[in-house]
């Protein structure tokens, strides 16, 4: 990201910050002090305490590195706020939400490494959400045609969905401005998770409402039990993601055992692959997958005879035929892992050429997935500059300098490599060059 772009983003972000703050303050002032009308002060304090506890109990893990932590996961006090909006009116809900978010934000600044203006931004967001979710209620609720119980349940669902939608919109805009990614992707990603998150929230909220009606404040404590269940579920979700990364990392170990790569080769190929994918405008999820696919692209070599892989002389046709099997073998291994299904074709086709002279299938042009073309370019480049195995060098050629290797890529663009990928990759390398010299690299 260029400095100008960063500066521009920063300015927009602060503009957005100001807008949200102004809206939130106006709502708070407009609502006034809701306690004067009702007199639920002790109850609200108690509920606020429960909500705060719930918010703090739920540990948030960053799920995917390199991308904004998917902390878009609904604020866990949302079900409580929704029930309060329905039972005691939206002004009280707004204050409750504001208080809880602000309190929880302050208590966890150290943990989340956030700062005060970030906490306030969150609070402003929750104020706007709560107001937006509740303000329509007095108008719509009396007009619902069903039995009172069903009406209430429907209204609750409506509140939750409205709250989530507004929240997603606001958070997505913030993330877009803070990270400079496209709004569409962030929105799509978080909207995808919406139904899965709404159902447990709805159940919790319903439970809370019934308990509040029946047993008062003491009843609301019972909500903490399902919260613990939800927390457990969330921790397991993160485990699932850990498992995913663990699998990839262990497969990486396996490759390194089979083939004496320098430790850096796979890492470099993976990082460059991700950068190129980002530059080409692929969605972040996809870029992450390209990273993983590039890390595993030579998995098939674990199957081959290491005498062929390590051979420094010229390969016989038979040995060469063996080597040519490795993309297919890698794909065959990976097809057993259900959550890596998507990258199987990329690995199978990473030695194909645009002109159809590649191996093992001889695909042409558009038949080769873009991601496979990216991996092909990046892998070839690192092999050419001797990054794959510098101690022994590739059998059939000496290591080239970076400029020579780029020249080679350019010469192959259109026949062997995708010209667009090569063009983007050149920019990536130009940016990486000064860094590598500082680090004492090649």
């Amino acid at each position, binding site marked *: 990201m260029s400095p100008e772009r960063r500066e521009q983003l920063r300015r927009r972000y602060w503009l957005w910050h100001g807008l949200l703050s102004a809206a939130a303050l106006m709502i708070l002032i407009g609502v006034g002090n809701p306690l004067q009308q009702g007199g639920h002060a002790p109850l609200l304090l108690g509920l606020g305490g429960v909500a705060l506890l719930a918010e703090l109990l739920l540990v948030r893990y960053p799920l995917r590195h390199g991308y904004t932590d998917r902390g878009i996961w609904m604020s866990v006090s949302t079900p409580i706020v929704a029930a309060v909006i329905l039972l005691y009116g939206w002004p009280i809900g707004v204050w409750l939400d504001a208080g809880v978010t602000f309190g929880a934000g302050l208590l966890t600044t150290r943990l989340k490494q956030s700062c005060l203006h970030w906490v306030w931004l969150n609070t402003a967001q929750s104020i706007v959400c709560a107001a937006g979710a509740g303000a329509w209620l007095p108008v719509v609720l009396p007009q619902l045609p069903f039995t009172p119980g069903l009406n209430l349940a429907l209204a609750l669902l409506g509140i939750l969905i409205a709250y989530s939608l507004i929240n997603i919109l606001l958070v997505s805009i913030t993330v877009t401005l803070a990270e400079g990614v496209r709004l569409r992707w962030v929105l799509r990603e978080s909207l995808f998770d919406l139904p899965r998150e709404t159902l447990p929230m709805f159940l919790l909220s319903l439970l809370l409402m019934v308990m509040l009606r029946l047993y008062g404040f003491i009843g609301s404590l019972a909500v903490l039990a399902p919260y613990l269940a939800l927390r457990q579920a969330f921790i397991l979700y993160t485990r699932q993601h850990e498992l995913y990364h663990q699998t990839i990392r262990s497969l990486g170990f396996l490759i390194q055992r089979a083939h004496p790569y320098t430790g850096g080769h796979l890492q470099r190929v993976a990082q460059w692959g991700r950068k190129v994918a980002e530059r080409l405008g692929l969605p972040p999820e996809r870029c992450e997958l390209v990273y993983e696919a590039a890390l595993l692209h030579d998995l098939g070599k674990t199957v081959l005879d290491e005498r062929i892989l390590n051979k420094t002389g010229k390969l016989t046709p038979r040995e060469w035929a063996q080597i040519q099997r490795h993309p297919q073998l890698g794909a065959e291994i990976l097809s057993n892992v*259900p959550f890596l299904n998507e990258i199987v074709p990329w690995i199978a086709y990473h030695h194909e050429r645009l002109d159809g002279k590649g191996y093992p299938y001889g695909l042409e042009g558009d038949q080769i997935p873009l991601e496979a073309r990216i991996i092909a370019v990046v892998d070839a480049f690192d092999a050419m500059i001797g990054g794959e195995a510098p101690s022994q060098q590739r059998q059939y050629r000496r290591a080239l300098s970076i400029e020579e290797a780029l020249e080679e890529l350019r010469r192959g663009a259109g026949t062997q490599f995708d010209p667009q990928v090569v063009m983007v990759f050149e920019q990536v390398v130009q940016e990486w060059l000064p860094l590598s010299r500082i680090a004492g690299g090649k």
Partner: protein
Amino acid sequence: MDTFWIGLGVVLGSVGVLGYYAFVFLPAQLHRWRCQSLRAFAKAIELRTQGRYGDTELLAQLALAVSTRLGIEGYERKRLELAIYLRDIGMVGIPYALLNKTTPLSPMEQLTLARHAEIGAAIVEQIPGLSAVAELVRLHHVVYAQHPDAPLSAHLLAALSDFVEIAHHQDYDAALATLRAGAGDRYHPQVVQAIEAELAARPLTSWAPLRRSAALWLGLMVYPLKDLTRLLVELARH
């Protein structure tokens, strides 16, 4: 009074659903995922050794069935399930030429080959969350006469590893005969007995076709669905 019972119903119902989801459904799913991902390792080894050490899927089915008979349950069973797919991972550290040698191995070569259990355990120990499985990987060729007090699941793994290997080269009867001959000496007698009982109850020949048709059915079910969703996504994008 009516509201009270309805309220109680709602409360208990939602607590039940959430509890089931968080403490039963998700952990089970996680374990399934884990086993499935480990299948990739087993596949890599199977390709490297050209399948000469037996069919891992067959071993998995047999081991699960027999472990129920032996009363291996809960955590130990999960550990066993993971060890099935990881047992031969150490083969990556054994030279290719030795693994694929068609002539009989010399005693020296046999010793080298036997090191795969140790290498595999060393690899598995490196992976956080799988270190408990390393013990079973290390002991997956354990000899009963030498280590009678090794975990029962290790003895089961040892017997079944040999069973599928011999079954691959000869047939099921020869494999079972070998186990019977080695019971009490090389293999744990209780384990051999359980395997025999299982095979008597469900002859092996009936298993493989079932498995294949199930896989086919799943593939038929899942793949069109996936393609369909991808198509819809593509259409929505344009």
